[in-house]
């Protein structure tokens, strides 16, 4: 019998794999046995990165036992990566937080308490902070991993209830520059196209992204496109040769921080060789310069580009590439039938992050490599709901739900009316952005902060500086999470939350696609969904502050059961009231519609009928995007309607090369950059608890170029000190033809104190996006010993 079951499982595995590539296995392959009684597969979205892979979780007798991809989902066509295949092992893990934990002082041990007392304490501390120090003495710091319903409800309570815009989220650390780039170049946040362009593209320009390790399922699609069509060109531009470079026709290895020169030089080649699309420029584009976005002419743009000859740029970029390499890349980009650019943190986490985004968009606008099949300027996202929750539903200090800027009174009033609260309730000033928020913890201005589903004690740059404030008793810290982290070490109150598939809600991935995951497994112990926690906390806040408007914020949701009815009601309020007639219109993406769709809905999707067709594959294209039709002002095929550009044009920016805020010198002679590895995700609190993933990469190491290693006398495995002006790490060495000479590279996942690389990184940030420049700082590098035995480390394990 056991053999029959095993044969069945193996045939199921083979058939599922074969179905994804359209392969027919022999006809006698009908499974020998049926699924066992009590076994069910529940559809949802992967918990980890921003690709939005659709999965089915196998559940038997109330416990998960397996995972499989959804073959008809256009996000992943059934494929999953190694870490995605294992995320569900966080369910039922022995380290899960199961009861609220409290301590009055951070030097005391935690004690288990009940939910009523826990929420009463949280409400009391926030209420006292508001009464004593004002509304801006409290803050919410959320996550691109929180469900949209969670982000929306927390920010509603903070803005409408507590009258503060101190609402932030960790996407400030990863996506804010992409937001700034899209808004200033296209007038609207988020990509015009999406993954559907990957199978139609003839040229890929991948810059500042190790797609192969950070987004492996999308990388497979790019690789497949290349293998099936050898004439497709792939350009990989990065200071580090990575797994992504394996499939590239050309790798442009540039010195960190010289990417603006490279991009302007490519634009110059396109202009010099008249590879731009004059008709597209005439119809849709204007040129802009300076902080005031003053108009510029094409001639001024040409003059601006004059210094960026390929020869000059090749020299600026450090000599690892030639002028002809730049010319070839520009020609492939401009002349292909469709070019897709992809980038990630290498572009966003820069002092000039918004500018770098602008210059990528420039290339697409110049060449008309937009709006047609196989062409897009596609920013990759790192978290599963940075777009859907934080960017769209009001999770940043300056943006209200539905892409509404806080500083516009009309926008605030629309939100206040939708919430049924007095006009003027939402403050006119944006709140504290992330770095200012944690600076305010340090300097005592913030007296209570709620940190949800993220670990800033490890993920902030120069983290030791900000952890000083978190460690003190001046600021009351609430953490909602599933495991202990470096941040819960600084908490007064830890509230255990339900994990993915233990609650219901929506994630919105990279390509404007919203997807529903329904509860399939009971959360362990007393863990609760955040929407229940937020609602019950707000009710207590209303009493303690004697403020009926706070109660009004959660009144529409009072009494609803938390597993489905509550998140559905929150989603309905957000989508029906606050995305109506906005560019992110999600009114058609109701729970019933999302429940029927294999892979969710791409906005804008104003009606259910339209949403049931999948929504808008390509924004701004008449006949495809219903808003392009309803907003149409002429007979041209494209209509831009983004809220940030009243002229309804695409903007080409004159942005000059500028150095990062710290470059190597005699004292700190090396560049340091950081990034991901395929087996781990973010601060490793989840992937570190999957033995298969932990064993694959149990601790961080530092990559050195062989030439640098030889100069420093460093051999593979030697322990190496990486020291910046802010902090020090000691890591084992990996000597590898990866980083450009003069640069070292480290992974940022490790929780062990001497290997937490954000002690070393720099907290200067882009003045426009406020996103820190994690990717570039100056360090000393020296060998401290030969190889040493190391142990992996996780807080709370």
């Amino acid at each position, binding site marked *: 019998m056991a053999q029959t079951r*095993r044969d069945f499982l193996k045939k199921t595995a083979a058939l599922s794999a074969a179905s*994804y590539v359209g392969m027919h296995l022999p006809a006698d392959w009908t499974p020998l046995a049926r699924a066992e009684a009590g076994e069910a597969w529940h559809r949802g979205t992967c918990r980890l990165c921003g690709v939005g892979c659709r999965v089915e979780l196998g559940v038997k007798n109330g416990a998960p036992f*397996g995972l*499989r991809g959804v073959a008809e989902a256009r996000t992943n066509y059934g494929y999953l990566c190694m870490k995605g295949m294992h995320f569900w092992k966080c369910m039922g893990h022995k380290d899960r937080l199961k009861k609220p934990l409290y301590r009055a002082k951070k030097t005391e041990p935690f004690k288990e308490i009940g939910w009523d007392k826990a929420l009463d304490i949280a409400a009391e501390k926030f209420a006292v902070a508001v009464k004593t120090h004002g509304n801006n003495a409290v803050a919410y710091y959320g996550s691109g991993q929180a469900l949209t319903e969670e982000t929306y409800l927390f920010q509603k309570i903070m803005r409408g209830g507590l009258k503060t815009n101190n609402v932030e989220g960790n996407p400030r650390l990863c996506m804010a520059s992409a937001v700034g780039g899209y808004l200033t170049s296209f007038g609207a946040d988020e990509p015009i196209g999406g993954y559907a362009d990957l199978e139609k593209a003839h040229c890929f320009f991948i810059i500042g992204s190790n797609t192969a390790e950070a987004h492996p399922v999308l990388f497979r699609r790019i690789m497949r496109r290349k293998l099936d069509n050898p004439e497709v060109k792939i350009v990989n531009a990065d200071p580090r040769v990575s797994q992504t470079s394996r499939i590239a026709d050309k790798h442009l290895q540039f010195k960190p921080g010289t990417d603006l020169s490279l991009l302007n030089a490519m634009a110059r080649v396109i202009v010099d060789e008249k590879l731009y699309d004059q008709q597209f420029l005439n119809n849709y584009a204007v040129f802009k310069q300076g902080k005031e976005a003053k108009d510029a002419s094409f001639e001024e743009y040409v003059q601006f580009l004059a210094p960026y000859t390929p020869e000059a740029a090749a020299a600026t970029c450090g000599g690892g590439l030639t002028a002809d390499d730049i010319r070839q890349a520009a020609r492939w980009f401009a002349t292909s039938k469709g070019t897709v650019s992809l980038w990630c943190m290498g572009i966003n986490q820069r002092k000039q992050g918004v500018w770098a985004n602008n210059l990528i968009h420039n290339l697409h606008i110049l060449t008309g490599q937009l709006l047609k099949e196989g062409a897009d300027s596609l920013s990759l996202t790192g978290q599963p709901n940075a777009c859907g929750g934080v960017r769209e539903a009001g999770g940043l200090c300056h943006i209200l739900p539905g892409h509404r800027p806080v500083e516009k009174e009309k926008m605030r009033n629309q939100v206040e009316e939708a919430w049924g609260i007095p006009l003027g309730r939402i403050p006119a000033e944006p709140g504290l952005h992330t770095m200012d928020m944690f600076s305010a913890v340090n300097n005592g201005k913030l007296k209570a902060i709620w940190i949800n589903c993220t670990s800033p004690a490890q993920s902030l740059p120069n983290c030791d500086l900000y952890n000083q404030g978190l460690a003190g008793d001046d600021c009351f810290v609430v953490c909602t999470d599933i495991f202990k982290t470096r941040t819960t070490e600084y908490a007064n109150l830890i509230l255990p939350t339900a994990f993915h598939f233990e609650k219901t809600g929506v994630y919105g991935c990279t390509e404007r696609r919203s997807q529903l995951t329904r509860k399939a497994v009971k959360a362990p112990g007393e863990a609760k969904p955040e929407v229940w926690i937020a609602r019950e906390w707000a009710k207590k806040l209303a009493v303690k502050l004697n403020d009926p408007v706070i109660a009004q914020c959660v009144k529409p949701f009072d009494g609803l059961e938390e597993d489905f009815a509550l998140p559905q009601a929150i989603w309905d309020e957000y989508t029906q009231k606050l995305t109506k007639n906005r560019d992110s219109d999600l009114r058609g993406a109701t729970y019933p519609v999302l429940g029927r769709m294999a892979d969710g809905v791409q906005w804008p999707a104003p009606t259910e009928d339209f949403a049931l067709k999948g929504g808008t594959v390509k924004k701004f294209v008449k006949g495809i995007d219903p808003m392009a039709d309803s907003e149409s002002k002429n007979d041209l095929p494209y209509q831009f309607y983004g809220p940030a550009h009243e002229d309804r044009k695409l903007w080409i920016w004159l942005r000059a090369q500028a150095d990062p805020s710290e470059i190597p010198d005699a004292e700190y002679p090396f560049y340091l950059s950081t990034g991901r590895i395929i087996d781990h995700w973010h601060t490793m609190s989840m992937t570190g608890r999957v033995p298969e993933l932990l064993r694959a990469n149990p601790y961080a190491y530092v990559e050195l170029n062989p030439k640098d290693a030889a100069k420093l006398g460093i051999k593979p495995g030697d322990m190496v000190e990486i020291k910046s002006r802010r902090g020090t790490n000691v890591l084992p060495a990996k000597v590898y033809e990866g980083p450009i000479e003069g640069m070292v590279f480290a992974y940022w996942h490790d929780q062990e104190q001497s290997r937490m690389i954000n002690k070393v990184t720099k907290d200067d940030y882009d003045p426009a996006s406020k996103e820190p420049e994690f990717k570039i700082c100056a360090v000393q590098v020296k060998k401290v010993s030969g190889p040493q035995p190391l142990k*992996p*480390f996780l807080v709370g394990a």
Partner: protein
Amino acid sequence: MPIGGVVISTRIDDLEVARTQLALLSGVEIHGTDERGHIVAVFDTRTSEEMERLMQAVSACPLVLHVGLTYLNMEDVLAERETAGPSGGSGQGGAGE
């Protein structure tokens, strides 16, 4: 005793050699190939550690461009965990195990 369904990608010119090499690996069952360089295989191992080592071995094969997981069943691991009690048991521990 986990079971995984995978699609292994190779260049078409390398397909037959890669298939032959992979078939020699213990725990790999090859069920089909196609003209695009795909190899459909099942990984059947005794423990999750063996599955992990097998994945690494296949990924490290010079002719293999990509290993795409599509299915993973670990119900035996689940059963072991249930046997071990509510604390989690085998295969579910944290760091240092």
